[in-house]
């Protein structure tokens, strides 16, 4: 992987680690942006890791664009020697798959979909060669996912499935984007899943909904009091399929201020993960439910 650099006008440097998505490219993006943060370069105002790229915003009145680029290239090449290990968190996200709210919405925008006669879940199951919606839900929720980018809108996580490429679920975006998506919809586009942090436009397939808020600009929800966005790039997510009764109970707990998300600190080694993916994922899940 040879990072490609480009100026984005006079205030940004855009760096493409790789054209294709991979955990290797994502780790590099995470490591370089961490190094940029630690370097405390004068004039840097935004440091944004993304899936397989990253972006720095700077003030050219404080650092010359060519000096900024030289510094970034130096940090980019020096991270190549880093051991791909991160200290991060694993977070359990309860999901009511096939819920009534995304169902109502997907029916409303059916003419914008590839398969107007089915649902998003039925379509995704079929194009991924799975024989039922249940099999698709199982494939979606059995392995954990990496938060490989946070953005588009406030606090929205892009999630990358932690399985071999041939097992990764893929689905195109809607033919034309919807003008509405329920808040906290679990969506999927390309190889990425996401959670819509706010209600709004969207083009990803809709699979379900979580009762667990991930963005709270008023910072009233207990676990979002310290910061209004839950996710950070590098977090690991494990979906937990729940039924309607559990969903309703969780919503009630959130409203009453007694919902406690399951979040555990964990160390992740990309090398060990690649050696035996399924065993490593079982170990991660063990961390989640260890008492």
């Amino acid at each position, binding site marked *: 992987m040879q990072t490609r650099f*480009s*100026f*984005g*006008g*006079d*205030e*940004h440097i*855009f760096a*493409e680690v*790789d*054209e*294709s*998505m*991979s955990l290797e490219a994502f780790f590099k993006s995470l490591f370089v*942006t961490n190094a940029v943060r630690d370097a405390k370069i004068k004039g840097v*105002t*935004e*440091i*944004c*890791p*993304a*899936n*397989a*790229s*990253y*972006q720095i*915003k700077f003030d*050219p*009145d404080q650092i010359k*664009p060519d000096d900024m680029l030289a510094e970034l290239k130096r940090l980019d090449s020096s991270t190549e020697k880093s051991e791909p290990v991160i200290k991060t968190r694993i977070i359990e996200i309860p999901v009511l798959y096939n819920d009534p709210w995304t169902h109502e919405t997907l029916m409303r925008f059916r003419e914008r979909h590839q398969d107007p006669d089915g649902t998003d879940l039925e379509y995704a199951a079929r194009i991924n060669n799975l024989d039922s919606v249940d099999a698709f839900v199982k494939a979606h929720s059995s392995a954990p996912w990496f938060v490989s*980018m*946070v*953005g*588009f*809108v*406030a*606090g*929205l996580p*892009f999630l990358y499935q932690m399985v071999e*490429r041939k097992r990764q679920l893929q689905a*195109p*975006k809607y033919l034309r984007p919807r003008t509405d998506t329920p808040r906290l919809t679990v969506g999927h*586009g*390309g*190889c*990425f899943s996401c959670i819509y*942090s*706010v209600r*709004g436009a969207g083009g990803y397939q809709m699979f379900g909904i979580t009762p667990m808020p991930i*963005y709270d*600009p008023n910072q009233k929800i207990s676990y979002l009091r310290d910061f*209004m*966005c839950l*996710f*950070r*790039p590098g977090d690991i997510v494990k979906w937990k399929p729940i039924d309607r009764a559990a969903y309703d109970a969780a919503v009630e707990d959130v409203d009453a201020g007694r919902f406690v998300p399951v979040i555990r600190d964990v160390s992740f080694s990309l090398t060990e993960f690649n050696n035996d993916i399924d065993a490593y994922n079982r170990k991660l899940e063990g961390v989640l439910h260890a008492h």
Partner: protein
Amino acid sequence: MPIKVLKPGLATTVQDLGRPGYYHIGIPLSGGMDRHALAAANLLVGNEEGAAVLEAVFMGPELEFTDDALVAVTGAELPPKLDGAPRETWTGFKVKRGQKLSFDFLKQGARAYIAIAGGIDVPVVLGSRSTYALGALGGFKGRKIEAGDELPIGTSAAPVKEGRSIAKELRGMPAGKPTELRAMPGLYWHRLTETAGSGFFSDTWKVAPEADRIGYRFKGGKPLEFVPREPPFGAGSDPSNITDACYPYGSIQVPGGTEPIVLHRDAVSGGGYFMVGTVIAADMDLIGQLQPNTPVKFVKVGMEQALAARHDRAGLLARLRSSLA
């Protein structure tokens, strides 16, 4: 004493100079789309340049003052009226307690900045009073103002006289037809064929109706052709798709190769569309003053020209400051 909103206008929001530092989690800068006009309005009423003001787009609000105040309206030519009597734009004027400020029809530009001495005193969220409506964050309750709202006003730190005004040549509004927006090619420019690349800069585009604080869409140019490729894993099958990445402010994405979108202060922070380049920082204020249907040409520049233009724009604000000193 607060200001009462009688009519809100079309999409009037509280804005200051913005909220840097949170783009990596999808919270954009926000802040006035025309920062030069925003700073000018504040200076006319004795505020700091970055105090919170109202940004009104296309149509002004109707406001009732519950206390005496000094007010200035800059940016778009949206003529203010005090109890029905006309007042000048780009000039500080006094408002008496109980008087109503309303606006005539828009004559030129798109966004007017309404500064009130003391500034609009909504809570500071993540370092700024700016409204980010998509995230229901900052400003007045995280949204555009509505009839019945009461906007809190701060205390004026350094009262100034009424009647000071900004000379026309210091206003920095778009001039010339078509409006020229200077842009640096880059990012995913290499995805375009040579013909498409030169067509992008030689075509005349028009501002589309979908033009807001998130981004400005343009139409009317030739569709762009792509260099053929095997889609990279994660990018998606359309030739305009990329593996979802960050979007620079001012970046020009062209979904499907048809209608360019220039991201502005409430930008979506990333996504899966390729970008052909970036409008330079010095020309971003101009975009905020473009009405739908305005003809626009993108002018190709390099870094040296971008920095020279940046220097010129800073010089304009410096001259504006000293004209009031």
